[in-house]
Structures are given as C-alpha cells and as structure tokens.
C-alpha cells in the first residue's frame, strides 16, 4: 500500500520529484527541508532570523520594538507593554519577543514538543487596523510561507486571564493543522472595558521555527548558523540545560515553605503600595497628589510585585503544593493585586491627563 509520503525532496524541488511514494512506517529519514525548497530554494530561516524578520516586518508597519520584559511572566500578554498599555485611550503599536515561563509545562527536556520556557512574539495594535488579518498573513509570507501552498484557517479561540480580569475574542490560526498564532481582540482588562479595543497577535516562535525547518523536536531547531564555518547552533545547545534544570527545580527542588514566604512578602509589599494610592477608595488619592508625586508613583513597581506573586504561584502549583481548595483562594488574592494595579494605572493616567489639561488652561 503506497501513498504520497512525507514531502521530502532531494534535488531541485521540481514538481516531478514530489511524487515519490514511501511506504508508511518505513519512511526514510530526510534531512532536506522541503518547505524552503519550495519557497525559493533558500534554506529555512533560523530561529533568530525568524525573530529578526518578524520584528523588521512589524517595525516597518509602525510598531515600536521593545525588549523582553525582565520579570518572569507566563505569557507576553502579562508584560506591562501589553497588560497596562491596552488601558486608556492612547494609541499603541508595539512589538516584542517575550520569553514566557510556565513551570508546570516543563518536561525535563525529554518531551520534544513541550517547554518550561517558550518564546512569544507579541504584537499590540491599538486600535486594530482594518487590514489587521491581511497584515498578519503578509507577515507569514515574509517568513517564507507561500500562502497558496498551505492551508490556513482562523478557528474560534477566545482568550481569558481571570487573574487579570482580562478577556478577548479571537482565533487560533491554524497552518496545515498546526496552531501557530493566537489572535485576540482584547475587550476587557483589569475588569475595565477597553475603548479603543486592542488587537493582539501572539506568534509561537518555536512552533513556527519547527514548522519552517521541518524538525520533529524543538531541540533540533537551528537557532543560528555560524557564518564562517556554517556550523549550526541548535535550540537544544542554547536551552536544553535550562529546561532540564528548571524542570528539576520547579518539580523537585523548589522549597515550598520559602516559596510561600516569597509569595506573602511580594503580596504584602504590592498591597502596601496600592494602599498608598487609595486602593480601598477607587484610587482617589491620585487626584490629591502633586504632579511630581503623581507621575513618580510606582504603579509599575506594584505590577512587578504582582507578577512575582503570579510566578510564585506557578512554581508552587508545579511543585504540587497547592491543593484544589487553596487554589481558588490564592488566585483570588493575586487577582486582587493584578486588577488593583490595572485600576491604579488607569486612575494614574487619568489624573495625569487632568493635571496636564489644568496646566494648559493655566498656561
């Protein structure tokens, strides 16, 4: 029984060479990368080239390129460049890569498809342009995907982060059966309605690189090629040790008692900060502050502390230290902080705008 097997081409990639039949179960191992053979006979983008290309693409379309946020987050959405910038009326176009840590997803580097830490490319477009989907499809072309030779579907997938009081509707973008992007129209954040709303495009870089390079394990992804020698630096070379050790840390070594202590400390400091801005009173205290105190008030610092709590929670969860009953309670505690920060950020923004307007009138 024969059928067209894996699309493996050796040679010039002409159509004729594709009709090679392989017996299922005896598929020959294939080094060549058929995707790129088809797309102009170039080799597939390396992991870092993929990132450059997408960043260049969005920079050319008006996005400011930001660097990854340097506090542990579970997703690019949690970076203040998304979570806080979506609030308020100010237009935003920003893009950044965000290493995203999910301790419970670690597999000691043994599973070829799962990571404790993966990389998202986050694009924030507020308000969303009318051609946002078309722009997104063009970005796929930019990374070497010939749309006419692939099957692309936008399948309903709504996003929700209850801890952040945030949700949106959107799609998972499926490319030949592989989810490569999460596409969301943010509707609420910190429990507040957004106006204008925001378009969020989240590329899963490892997924896409694996697809482009046609490798079956994340660790085989070529991260970079040394220009002089042509030596391939793989994802495994760059990150496997980290996966192994952090899996061990979060599953086996992390000190549960200390993690709880950290969580409690971060929580109390975050709360104390928020209270200085009138946490219990809709942050009305901002209106009473002088301009300098107002603009220097560290809402951003409070957000980092809240993110630390979230990360501690994830570690405790991976460690199996949070019972189902406790879980709801701890999540509610963190939600209080995160939603509180979002409200404080919005209130601070409003107070600053009001103060600027006063200056304009006075001047």
């Amino acid at each position, binding site marked *: 029984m024969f059928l067209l*097997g894996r699309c493996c081409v050796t040679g010039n990639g002409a159509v004729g060479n594709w009709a090679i039949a392989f017996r299922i179960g005896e598929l020959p191992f294939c080094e060549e990368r058929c995707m790129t053979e088809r797309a102009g006979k170039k080799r597939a983008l390396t992991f870092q080239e993929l990132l450059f290309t997408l960043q260049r693409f969005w920079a050319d379309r008006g996005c400011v390129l930001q660097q990854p946020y340097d506090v542990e987050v579970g997703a690019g959405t949690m970076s203040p460049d998304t979570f806080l910038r979506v609030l308020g009326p100010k237009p935003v176009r920003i893009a950044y890569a965000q290493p995203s840590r999910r301790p419970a997803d670690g597999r000691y580097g043994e599973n070829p498809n799962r990571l404790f830490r993966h990389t998202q490319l986050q694009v924030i477009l507020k308000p969303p342009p009318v051609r946002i989907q078309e722009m997104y499809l063009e970005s796929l072309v930019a990374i070497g995907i010939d749309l006419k030779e692939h099957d692309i579907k936008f399948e309903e997938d709504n996003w929700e982060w209850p801890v952040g009081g945030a949700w949106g509707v959107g799609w998972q973008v499926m490319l030949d*059966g592989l989810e490569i992007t999460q596409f969301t129209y943010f509707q609420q954040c910190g429990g507040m309605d957004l106006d204008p709303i925001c378009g969020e495009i989240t590329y899963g870089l490892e997924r896409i690189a694996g697809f482009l390079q046609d490798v079956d394990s994340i660790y085989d992804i070529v991260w970079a090629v040394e220009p002089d020698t042509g030596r391939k630096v793989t994802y495994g070379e760059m990150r496997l040790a980290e996966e192994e050790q952090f899996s061990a840390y979060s599953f086996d070594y992390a000190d549960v008692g200390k993690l709880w202590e950290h969580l409690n400390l971060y929580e109390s400091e975050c709360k104390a900060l928020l209270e200085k801005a009138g946490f219990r009173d809709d942050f009305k205290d901002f209106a009473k502050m002088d301009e300098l105190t107002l603009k220097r008030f560290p809402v951003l610092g409070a957000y980092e502390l809240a993110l630390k709590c979230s990360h501690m929670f994830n570690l405790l969860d991976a460690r199996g230290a949070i019972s189902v009953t406790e879980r709801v309670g701890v999540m509610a505690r963190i939600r209080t902080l995160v939603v509180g920060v979002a409200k404080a950020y919005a209130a601070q923004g409003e107070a600053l705008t009001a103060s600027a307007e006063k200056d304009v009138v006075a001047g």
Partner: protein
Amino acid sequence: MNGAPGFCGWLRESDSDTRCAFVAGFELRTMADFLFEIGLEEVPARMIAGAQAELEQRVVKMLERERLVQSGAVAKSFATPRRLAVWLKGVAEQQEDVAEELVGPSVKVAYKDGVATPAAVAFAKKAGVQVGALKTITNAKGEYLAATSVKAGRGAAEVIAAEMPKELAGIYWAKNMYWRAGRPERFVRPVRWMVAMLGEKTVPVEFGGYVAGSVTYGHRVLFGEQAIVLKAPGEYEDALLGGFVVADVEVRRQRIRKALDHVTRTVPGLRWREDHELVDKLTQLTEWPTALLGGFEKEYLALPEEVLVTVMRDHQNYFAVETGSPKTGDGKLAPYFLAVLNTEADEAGVAVIRHGNERVLRARFNDARFFWEFDQRVPLIERVALLEHVTFQKDLGSYAAKAERVRELCKRLVGKIEGRGFAVDTNALLDAASLAKTDLTTELVKEFTELQGEVGGLYARAQGIRPAACDAIYDQYRPVSMEDRIPRTAEGQLLAIADKADTIAGMFGLGLEPTGSKDPFALRRAANGIVKILGESSVELGLGEISRAAVGGDEELVRKIEVFFAERLEFYLREAKGQAYDVVKAVLAIEANDVRDAVARAEAVTAVRGSEDFAAVSSAFKRMKNILAQAREKGIAASARVDIALLTEPAEKALAEKSAELAAKVKWLRAEKSYKAALEEIATLRPQVDAFFEAVMVMAPDEAVRANRLALLEKVLGDFSGIADFSEIVIAG
C-alpha cells in the same frame, strides 16, 4: 403589523376591508431581486448556522412587515465563515399607497353658517385633502366629517436602508465583541463589507462603519483582496464561485463528503468514519473545501483507539479512517487520517500540506504516548491516595471521600438485588468503585478530559486489574446522553448508578438541586442516566430504593429526590420511548418507581388504546372516578364491601359477576407482567359497563343501594387500575 391607530397594515388581496385599501395592487408594482450580504472576519463555526437562519428570517419578516413582499415569501440564504447573505425574488421597489377613511369632527362643529370652521380646516390638513373634498357620513353619534386620506408608499431602498441596521443589530450571537472606537456597535466579529442590492441598484444600508454597495470579496488566499463587483443580485452565487467561494452551505457540505470519498478511495480497502458533527464543523470552517488523505506510522496504533480518535477528531478536526467490512461493523483503525482544507493546492502544494498535517499529528501522538507511558509509572492502585487532594465539591470533600461513599453505596445496592436473580461480581464492582476516579490524577486525562473513565479503564486493563472491574471503570460515566449506550456489564451499570446517585444525593443535600434552566452540576443528566440504565438493563432496583440507599436516613430528602427521579422518568418515557403525554401520566399515576415496569405498562397502554372497546372502558372508568369523587364531596360514603344481596338491577349484577371473574384473571396477568393481555381482558368488560351506565342510576334514592353501588364502582376501579389510571387517557372525538 404596524400597530399605529387608524393605520392599515399589510392586507392580502383577498382581504376585504372597507376602511382602507391599497391604491395600487401588489401585482401592478415593479419588482426586483433583493440581495444582502454582510462580510465579516471569520465567524466562529458553531454560530454560523443559527445566524444564517436568523438573518434570513429577519429579512423576510422585515420585508413582509414593510409590505415589500407578499407574506410567505421564500428566500435563499448563504453562509461561509466570512459572510452571511440572503437573496429574495419579487421585492417591490415601492410600498403601495394606502387609502384610509378618517373620521373628523361632527358637522355641527365643522361648519358655522355654512362656513368651514378651523376644526374642519385642521381635519382637512391632517387628512391631506382640500376642505372641498371632505365628505359627510352618518354614524351612531350623528353626522360627521370624513375624508379619504392617501398615504404615499415609500421607496423600498429607503425603507430597507432604515430597517436593515436594526435587524442586523438584533441578531443573536453567543459571544459578541466591540471593535470600533467609541463602541458604537457589538457584533460577533468586525464587519468588513456589505452588499445590498435591489435589482441593479445598491441600497445604502449602514452598519459597522460601512455603507453597503455592490462589491463583495472572494477567498482570502485563492482570490486575495480583489473586488468582485456584482451587477445584479442573481449573479451572487456564480460570481462567488469565480472567487473560490462556495456560498451555499449544502453544496459545500456535499463537496466535502465527495472529496472525502474521493481521497479515501485512493487507497483500496479504506473507509472514513462517518462523523456528521465534524462534517458540519468543517463546512463552517471553509469557503472552498478540498480533502487530503494523510498517514501516520503504524506503531501509534499500539495506543488505545480512543486516544487516537480523540486526538484526530477533537484536536485536529481529522476524520478517522478504518479498514474492514462495513457490513460486519468490525472496522479497525487504519494508520491514516483525512483532513479537510480551506484551499485548493496543486499536487505539490497538497504534498506540502499533507506533510505539515502529518508532522503535527505525529507530535500529538508522541505527546499522548509520552503521557500514556508516564502515567503507567504510578499504577492506579497507588493513585487512590492521591485522590485525597482532588476536591469533588467543597462541602462534599475530596474524590477519595466520594470513592468511599460510592463503594459503600455499591455494597448497599448489591445487598438489595441479591436474591433477585441478578448476577454481579461484587469484588470486581468494589474494586472498580475504589479505582474509578483515580484516572483524574493522570496526565492523559488532564490532557484529554473528555476521556475520563475510559482512560481509567484502559490503564486498569494494562495493569492487570480483573476485566470486569476494568469494563466498569471504563463505562462509569455512561450514558452521557439519551442517545448514548448504557454500561455494558452489570458491574458497570451498578457503578454508574451509584456514582450518579451519590452526586445527586450530595448536591440535593446541600440544596444545590437544579432550578429552571439552571443545572450547573448536570444533575438532570445524571438522573436521566440512572433511569436509562434501569430501563435498558436487567438491574432490578427501584428509583425509591436508590434514593434511600444514597441518602441514608433523611426521609424528606429521599422524597425530594424521588420526585426528581419521577420527573426524569416522565422525560425518559416521553423523549426516549416516544410515549404520549397522557399515557405517561396514566402510567406514572399508578407508580413511578420501577422503570422497566413503567415502560412495559406504557407500551401496553399505547398498544391497546386505539381499540374501541378499550376507549369505551377508559371513558367509563373516568365516569366512575367522577361519580365517586362527587359522592365523596357530598359526604356520601360507599359501603365497605359490595353486598351481592343488595344488587337489584340485572345490569349491575352482570357487571359485578363479570368483573369478579375478570379480576382474578387480570390480577394473574398483571403479576406475570402480561400487561397487554391484561388490558385486553379489561376491555372485554365493555358490554357490562355500557349496560350498567345505561340502566343503573348509581345515586339511587335508597341509601343502602346507593352505598352498595358506589362500593361496586370502587371495586371495579380498584381491580382494574393496577396498570394505568385510565381516567388520564385522552379519548379522541
């Protein structure tokens, strides 16, 4: 209908109403085709069919209401992930003018000395006529002014442009979004274009920041962003085909089925597993569907079929492929899958897409295999302790506590059916009860929650647990719906009953019973499951016994649950068994505890209810019941027993004799559960019953005779009402 007073709504030509009439008949006006399309970013597949039907209905109703089509107009609608559209023929380009008789002030007030007063002038103005054109009519109150007012019909384009936005805004979506600054409207996804055409002219419908025109768009990738300019509504379907869009849902569905057949046939002996739900979903995920056959390595067939099919179907939207004879139904999973694409690629492109899909599936199967092997490191028996940390419900404790309760309940249920000739492997049942929930701690169930239970059963088997226990664990959540099968084995049936009954008893105990449309813990489904198992297995347990065993001592709680079960039994008889409302009531009026008995009784009643004799006897029984009820109301007592000496009339003697003779027979047949035969016997009572009511007056003046006759009726009713309360049966005519 327009409800404004004095205004004429849409009337058919046949209607004759003297108060108003259309100035021009429908057939005299110019007609055109109407087309409306709304272009959207990809609409969730699950919402498309409902929205398509609703839009069609709204457009037709709106045009009817606005007198632009005749009532009952037929439309054709279209839908793809990126569009909803409606097309109608025969839409009037103009509303007809409506002539209306208006009654004005009385003549006395309208004219002073033969001169029109301001009241008459104002009335003429209101009616839109000259004062000279005013008429005089005479009604009950006297002489009044009247006028024929003609309301000019509006142009269809104007009406549609005014009404359509309201209809669009009214469409129901399970989840809406805002997308424009200032949040002017909510819709399922952003609007990207609109087409509204009446004949060759566009209708300026405004919605979502767009004004409708005559431009639509084709397939995202195959046709890109080129405009498709429509010249007339009738071109729509063909123009879109040119843009690689099959707009007709049914055509798309058939195209998918054909494509699946076609690619499956490329490998002899293969057959795709029918899956209507998946065909529907893919129909709503594609505009230009094609299909491809892909393969996977045979080694993955070592994984349980349940896992493979779930990965393919639920996670990847792939159809499973099997070999084997369709006649014998022994289809075996083959190492292939079918994917439906939303594109048409050349041969080389198909190879690329196939390769991509195979790669994803392999990764998913690898994951599943990883979980499968990983989970085996900790056998289910060791996982029992882990259940302490998995909460079932905060006031009902952990799953460990639930498992213990279910185990005890299984013991009690076995105790009840012992000696009822029902074979059950008690040890296997108790093992299954202990292990049933342990799969909740496995990675595979965390990944594939829809496979809970089944995964436990599969692991149990792989770990050498006795087969009867494995099957019970595997089937514990069945039946999940009225269509689903019940557990295959006695142990599975008892475990499923005990698990569901424990949940019901626990939740009812906390006052968390379902109310109205709210049933967050799916208790109705659980109770339906118990009823279905009792109805379709040989488990001999009554619903009352199950309630009592699950609850313990609280009699009030037991009664509450019994009432709940009775409702579910009623639902089962009607929905699953198709029994008529009155039959169900008649049967359950007698007893609502033994499910299979209730089914048998209902079927017997349904079988005989058509016979004339049975209908007559039923009516007579109803009459007897009424007479007895009236007597009771009036405080007239029946005597304790029928005294043969007091039976005076031949007809009542005959009834007493015949019913006594039948009673013994019916009692025996009923005990044998030969309900149909028993009912047929009861029907033979008809001549005596008829004669009785013809010749005998129950409420005789003589007190003793009357009491004796009442006693006779009570006895007849009592003797023959053991199967159903016939007075509930509705007799036609």
